């Protein structure tokens, strides 16, 4: 049976830079602007300030209205707001009532803010009861369900929780369903709201967060750099509308790019330490699934988070798969600017990769002046993006704790 092609026709996100749309976001990414700032956490029992990407401008009451906003955790606010934006961008009817349309959403820890608030109420305020909405706010699938309700999507409603690969798994699994003909259209993406005292302390305990102060926070995340010193936590969300190619053509939709393949593997070695073998198998699987030759890949949006160990392992994985072509392969890690929003990160990176193909432009890794010797061997795009360059096809890598690897392959409309 002939496999169907899958088009990307709508994009939306919570812009970490402010009120601008996806094009404003991409323009800032191309300029190498960092959204990382030195934030002092509010409502924490002890003072806590560190480099973070917080969407402080985002006002869920204003965007969603009080009834909807009061019925959701912050990770669902991000989900529904970005989904509504992507839906509008796609030109689809506001409320579709379609059972051949579905949702596939990614989140690492769902409503962790609600859970933490409940613990505060019980343990510190010594109250006997928590909000009766605690369960439905906190459950990981609440974001996907709210999206389905808002947009009238009666098909599959799936949530993927695969740590930092949650969104790419959500996108990849939805891609397969459309390609195989089970559904015609899926709203996909991911969201995360991890900026609570308990969650940040847990990440600090792993000793993987980059330090900084008010003057250095902007450059806290430096993937591949000789002096890289850890990741930068972020909150946010991004959504994409993906659909059967013929379905998109029939409704005269704008097609940003094509999702061409998906690779998903497990290192099966360690719960936290990444393994180059498992990553390389995921990259190779995505290439094989897409039918793309390694020489056709002009850009890789790397997973790299700016950790000493992880960045070098990913570069090794790329070199393993691409061989001699790796030296000519443009690679960047955009987390240097939008930070690491965990379960949402790969949705944001899928959106960036899509716009790279749409605009024939390659975004940079910001904040890096000297590449670490252990990260050399690819064509690093540093500081500023490259405009007006051929980008026929691209990969977006996501490598998660748990050894879970997900790679998405994209093809430009002009080269397909």
């Amino acid at each position: 049976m002939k496999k169907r092609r899958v088009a990307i026709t709508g994009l939306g996100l919570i812009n970490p830079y402010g009120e601008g749309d996806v094009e404003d976001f991409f323009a800032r990414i191309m300029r190498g602007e960092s959204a990382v700032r030195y934030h002092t956490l509010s409502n924490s029992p002890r003072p806590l300030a560190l480099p973070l990407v917080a969407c402080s401008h985002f006002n869920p009451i204003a965007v969603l209205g009080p009834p909807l906003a009061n019925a959701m955790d912050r990770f669902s606010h991000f989900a529904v707001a970005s989904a509504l934006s992507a839906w509008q961008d796609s030109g689809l009817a506001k409320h579709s009532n379609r059972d051949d349309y579905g949702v596939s959403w990614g989140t690492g820890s769902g409503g962790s803010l609600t859970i933490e608030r409940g613990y505060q109420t019980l343990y510190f305020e010594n109250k006997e009861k928590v909000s009766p909405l605690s369960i439905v706010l906190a459950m990981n699938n609440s974001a996907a369900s709210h999206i389905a309700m808002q947009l009238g999507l009666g098909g599959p409603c799936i949530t993927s929780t695969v740590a930092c690969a949650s969104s790419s798994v959500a996108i990849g699994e939805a891609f397969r369903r459309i390609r195989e003909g089970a559904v015609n259209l899926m709203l996909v993406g991911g969201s995360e709201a991890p900026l609570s005292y308990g969650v940040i302390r847990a990440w600090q305990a792993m000793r993987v967060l980059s330090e900084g102060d008010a003057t250095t926070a902007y450059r806290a995340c430096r993937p591949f750099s000789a002096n890289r010193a850890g990741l930068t936590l972020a909150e946010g969300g991004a959504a994409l509308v993906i659909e059967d190619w013929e379905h998109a053509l029939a409704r005269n939709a704008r097609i940003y790019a094509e999702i061409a393949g998906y690779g998903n593997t497990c290192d099966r070695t360690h719960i936290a330490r990444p393994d180059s073998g498992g990553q390389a198998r995921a990259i190779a699987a995505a290439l094989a699934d897409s039918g793309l030759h390694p020489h056709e890949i002009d850009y890789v949006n790397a997973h790299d988070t700016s950790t000493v160990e992880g960045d070098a392992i990913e570069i090794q994985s790329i070199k393993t798969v691409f061989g001699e072509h790796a030296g000519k392969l443009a690679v960047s890690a955009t987390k240097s600017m939008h930070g690491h929003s965990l379960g949402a990160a790969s949705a944001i990176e899928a959106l960036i990769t899509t716009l790279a193909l749409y605009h024939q432009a390659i975004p940079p890794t910001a904040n890096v002046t000297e590449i670490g010797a252990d990260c050399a061997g690819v064509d690093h795009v540093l500081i500023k993006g490259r405009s007006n360059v051929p980008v026929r096809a691209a990969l977006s890598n996501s490598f998660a704790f748990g050894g879970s690897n997900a790679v998405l392959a994209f093809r430009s409309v002009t080269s397909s």
Partner: protein
Amino acid sequence: MPHDNDMNDLALIQNFLKDRVASASVDKIVPDATLTELGIDSLMLVELIFEFEDKTGITVPSDIPLPNTVGELLQQLKDIRSQQATK
């Protein structure tokens, strides 16, 4: 003439619902209005009761029957208030 507490309870319900139910404008939240037509589900009713407890310090038993209208809910709250005042 309604007692001050009755008016306060109605105001509390109105204030609570205007931030949770899109269609529940304050002028629709009257004693004759049914909870169904206002869009109040069982979870929202529990939230409302918790709000009442926090604001008044009065404990509402968990086994009170489900009211059909705002008026019935107000009467239940009034009865609980008077029962606890006589204890």
